[in-house]
């Protein structure tokens, strides 16, 4: 398993779009270990950051295609600092 993060640029996004898009893909589950962990949105600028735990990057890319938010870049995450705790993945 690996952690991935993608940065998306989706101009003119509003709250209804954000909720609707995520609701439409809520059943996505290529396997029981793969999951979208977090989606951060700055709707005023159209910037979205998504975080995914997946066996393969291609699974995450499939989700990105389904949700319809083209990724400017996708990164594999090595280190996390979360609420003061550092995790090396």
């Amino acid at each position, binding site marked *: *398993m690996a952690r991935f993060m993608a940065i998306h640029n989706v101009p003119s996004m509003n709250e209804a779009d954000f909720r609707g898009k995520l609701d439409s893909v809520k059943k996505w*589950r290529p396997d*029981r*270990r*793969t*999951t979208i*962990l977090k989606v951060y949105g700055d709707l005023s600028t159209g910037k979205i950051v998504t975080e995914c*735990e997946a066996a393969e990057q291609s699974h995450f890319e499939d989700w990105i295609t389904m949700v319809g938010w083209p990724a400017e870049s996708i990164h594999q995450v090595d280190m*996390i600092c*979360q*609420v003061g*705790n550092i*995790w090396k*993945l």
Partner: protein
Amino acid sequence: MTTPLEDLLKLEPEDIWKRNERPTADQMRDKQQIYYEDIEEGAELPKYIYKPTPTHLFRWSAAIENFHRIHYDLDFGLNHDKNPSILVHGSWKQSVVPQFLKDWTSPGGWPWKARFEHRAMLVPGDVLIMWGRVVEKSVKSQMGLIELEIGMKTHDGVESMPGTATVVLPLRDGPPIPYPFIPPTD
């Protein structure tokens, strides 16, 4: 009449939850005995539906003093063990089986034997279906033995706990099942 497992799995998770047949305490107090003759091979037991939440998991951890962090510390579960979320305890699943079998055989029957395997990780958000199906019947020592296939499926059809069980039901014109239970010898 319980909804067949196959049909249940075609429903949305919210609708599966509405089919929960776990009896209330009042229903258990008034429960009528099921007799051996009432049961046919292939019959399904009432389904128990569960929707575990982080609160349930935390409560179970505290109750049984199992403080492994994978069960309540989301950051640890995600980042250390690479789990998809906090995990439902195997011991909780294990606790469901005797309750499920005891309820069905009560008040005068007996859940004799059960075996099962923990096969899949379960997480909050899963809707879980505890199910059982009669595969064989026989009579020994004037007791009705029912062989069951049992399991706990997720709403998306993953079998997380395949197993088998043997329960004992009284015969309609037979003697009561002894308590404490004495296994048949013939």
